[in-house]
């Protein structure tokens, strides 16, 4: 489903080359649930970005759902994301000028379908069936993240990338989000890649990759 081969990423910083990721390789099967952990600056988010095709690696390649991302243009990768990838962010990243329902519709509308019914169904699924007409500012943090989760699943993604999805939430609210992710993983067979530094959350995944200084230091199955 997802394969990283010798991923290396570096940035120029103050005239010196700064290596963020160094020769990362692993493979993840369809329907798997992987967590990536590590301290700040270990390269977690960079890795997530490369895996999702948000950026290009300096070396190595990513094969997502049998497609080699390094061979695609930016817009082709966007197309791929619209069709097969879902995202959840720490800061929710809802569009403030659209209602909850419209936010969920966005990925569907980008591919040309209407998605109203699907949005209603998903909002009901995350327990916000009656809040669809509310704007993000009118929702609590937990509710916003549930909308984000509904949005992530709108296009029935083959894979979901989650970047610290509970980072901005209190533990009880965070737990509901995790439960929802697990349910969706189970019900739709969606592959999940979760980046976190919350070890308790990471332990819920079936497999954990630990990063330090841009290298994999351990890769353990639960």
């Amino acid at each position: 489903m997802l394969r990283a081969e010798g991923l290396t990423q570096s940035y120029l910083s103050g005239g010196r080359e700064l290596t963020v990721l160094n020769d990362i390789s692993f493979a993840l099967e369809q329907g798997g649930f992987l967590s990536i952990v590590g301290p700040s600056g270990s390269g977690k988010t960079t890795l997530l970005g490369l895996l999702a095709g948000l950026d290009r690696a300096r070396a190595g390649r990513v094969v997502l759902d049998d497609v080699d991302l390094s061979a695609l243009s930016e817009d082709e990768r966007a197309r791929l994301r619209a069709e097969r990838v879902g995202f959840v962010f720490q800061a929710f990243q809802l569009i403030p000028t659209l209602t909850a329902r419209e936010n969920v519709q966005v990925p569907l509308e980008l591919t040309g379908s209407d998605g109203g019914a699907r949005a209603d169904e998903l909002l009901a699924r995350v327990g916000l069936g009656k809040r669809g007409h509310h704007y993000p500012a009118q929702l609590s943090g937990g509710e916003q993240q549930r909308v984000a989760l509904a949005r992530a699943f709108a296009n029935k993604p083959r894979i979901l990338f989650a970047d610290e999805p509970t980072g901005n939430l209190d533990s009880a609210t965070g737990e509901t989000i995790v439960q929802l992710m697990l349910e969706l993983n189970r019900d739709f067979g969606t592959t999940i890649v979760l980046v976190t530094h919350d070890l308790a959350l990471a332990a819920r995944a079936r497999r954990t990759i630990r990063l330090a200084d841009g290298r994999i230091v351990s890769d353990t199955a639960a």
Partner: protein
Amino acid sequence: MTPGFVIRLAARETRAAWRRLLVLTASVAVGTGALVAINAFSDNLRGSVRDQARALLGADLSLSSRKPLEGHAAAVLDTLAEGGRTARTVNFAGMAYVPRTTGTRLVQVTAVEGDFPFYGEITTEPRSAWKDLHGGPRVVVEPALLTQLDARLGDTLALGEGRFVITGTVTGIPGDVGVRAAFGARVFIPAATLESTKLLGFGSRAEYAAFVQLPAGRDAQALAKQYRPRLRADRVRIRSVEEDRDNLSETLGRLTDYLGLVALIALLLGGLGVASAVTVFIRRKLGAIAALRCIGATSRQVFAAYLLQSAAMGLLGSVIGVVLGLAIQRLLPGLLQQFLPVTVTPSISWRAIVLGLGTGLWVSVVFALIPLLGVRRVSPLAAIRRDYEPARGRDPLVLPVLVLLAASVVALAALQVGSWTSALAFTGGIGGALLVLWLASWALARAVRRWTPARWPYVWRQGLANLHRPANQTVTVVLSLGFGAFLLTTLFLVQHNLLRQLTLGGGAARPNLVFFDIQPDQRGPLVELLREQGVDGSAPVPIVPMRINAVNGRPVLRVTGDSAEWATDSTPGGGRNSGWAFRREYRSTYRDSLVGSEKLVAGKWWEPRTDGPGAISVEVGLASELDVTIGDTITWDVQGVLLPTVVRSIREVDWARFDTNFFVVFEPGLLEQAPQSFVILGRVDDPAARGRLQRTVVERFGNVTTVDLATLQGAVENLVDQVTLAIRFMAAFSLLTGALVLVGAVATSRFQRIREGALLRTLGATRRQVLRVVLAEYLALGGLAAIVGVGLAILAAWAIATWVFEGPFAVPVPAVTLLAFLVTAGTALLGALNSRDVLRLPPLQVLREE
């Protein structure tokens, strides 16, 4: 406060962020540039008028009249000339004809006697041509005439029955305004040969002038004052160098005042640019400001530092503006050349430079104040809590700052035009326009929020949603762009309507040739000639020159009474006040029926002729100027014969329609025996045939003046073009500033936009889709600015056309639509260009900045 800290902070902030404040600097620079250019030009112009005043008149004193200067006027002239010198000229229109090339053209003839001008020089090519003019039947002409007639030096030029040798071309006439040439090239002949032309027949319009060079030590102005009342009674005008200079300065001052206001508008729009640039800058700085507050900076220190920074960038903008202005200053004399009777040499005007620097700096400070007020309210808490909500509630200082802003605008306008009333009207006008634009943008945001159909494609809905998002730029963009569009469209519409009013001979049956000054004995032969040539000519219309002697039994001199009212006489061109209506020469006609361009609005058309005063019909506007109505009596002075009449009807006349229109029409039976000339209107479609006919007429009737309306119309259009070119040039600065403000406004939400663009792309949007979101937003913004700006302009232009030019008004829909479209498309293009980072940066980079 610790000034040292504040200055260091301001300097450090500027060192790190000056690029971000470039919009501020550029906005101030463009407006200041326009202002400095126009003020410096105005100073140069005043200086030139002062230096060249004597050459403009060519003498110390001049007398002029529609009649030959005889009797009392001649006596005055003799007295004035004691110990000095005199020269005379006669000016009139006539047909010039070159037999060799058969070219004919309407020209303005000046017959010169004596050493005119005494001051300044009429330059000719060859140089000796002017000096030798009096050596025989010679003529010097404007170079353009040679081209028009396909003639060359040495050719014979016929004027009426006179024959002249073209001995030179005129290259410079002091005080002559270029646009005059539009109505006929000027030609100069010696006065001794005037008689031979036989052009000054009865009814011809000529101006007789005399010029006096006083002996040293005599005060021209005192003499002018002394003789004016008596000369005025004889309808002779007397002018002195000083009065001419003052009047000219005043007239030109009004022109430059007006252009200065247009420049001031550009600078005020630049103020909007300042405000939006500071808004963006401060928003980026909130974290830094909170951190500064945490470590102990007071809100006053922070406020002072950022204010100082804005002032410094504003000052830089003003300095750039001054340099820019000095460059533009050199272009202005060229643009306005056709209207300037003096040669303007650009020179440094320190007054304009200091004024420009001060105004630019002041505008940047005052407009920066409003966004900067918020700096005082940034809490140190914001440094540790990311989602810290800024203080709510009204800042008590906002109102005083707004009042200061309005007062500044009034003061700057007053400084520019030197009148508080005009300054208040100007501020009120701008305020009104801005208010309408503001309301429109508010309504748009509201309407979009409420009524965007849910069925619309996502990209459009998202783009429109940006119009009412938090911290949206709808108001700023609509205000600045709408105002620029408003100014330019108003100018365009006024120009269009002026020209349209002057568009003659449009209809198939409209006359396009006018034959003037036909003497009674030429009437029959000319009609016969036109019939032979197959020309559809009108019946000859009689014209009888006359003046008003008395209204309702009161002699006109007493009606207008005091001399103060008559003092307007010295204004060049004469003000059209009631005094003028009493004093002017009327060219009236007599006929038994109304013509197509007339409508009776009161009274009755002729009843059978009875004894007692004859009946007349008066044009409605004139009736109100003279304050007469049905039944009032007017006694006319027809070439010395007094003719009592009674007003029987009032007519409305469509002056825009080309016809033989008259202020006063007499009933038949009163004027048939009076000295008169005739006019015939005709139509010839083919320009070549029109030219041939004019030649035939000038060959057989040398004194008959032919006006080709197509040529005249071209001249008028050219004239209006020239006037509006200068105004449009200045207005372009407003549009340029408008574009800068747009750039600044786009930046106000640039970061939010980039983040959202990245988010959309993360969710799978292609660049094209993101671009469409941006385009939707800017199309809506530009469209609204265009529609409201154009709508306001239509209102304003209608008001100007109705009340200032008192003419009909029409909107050229295709042109105005195109204008609105261009503003909209330009906005969308600029918006897209400015948002290209949204498309360029990889999404991960943006999301990592969280």
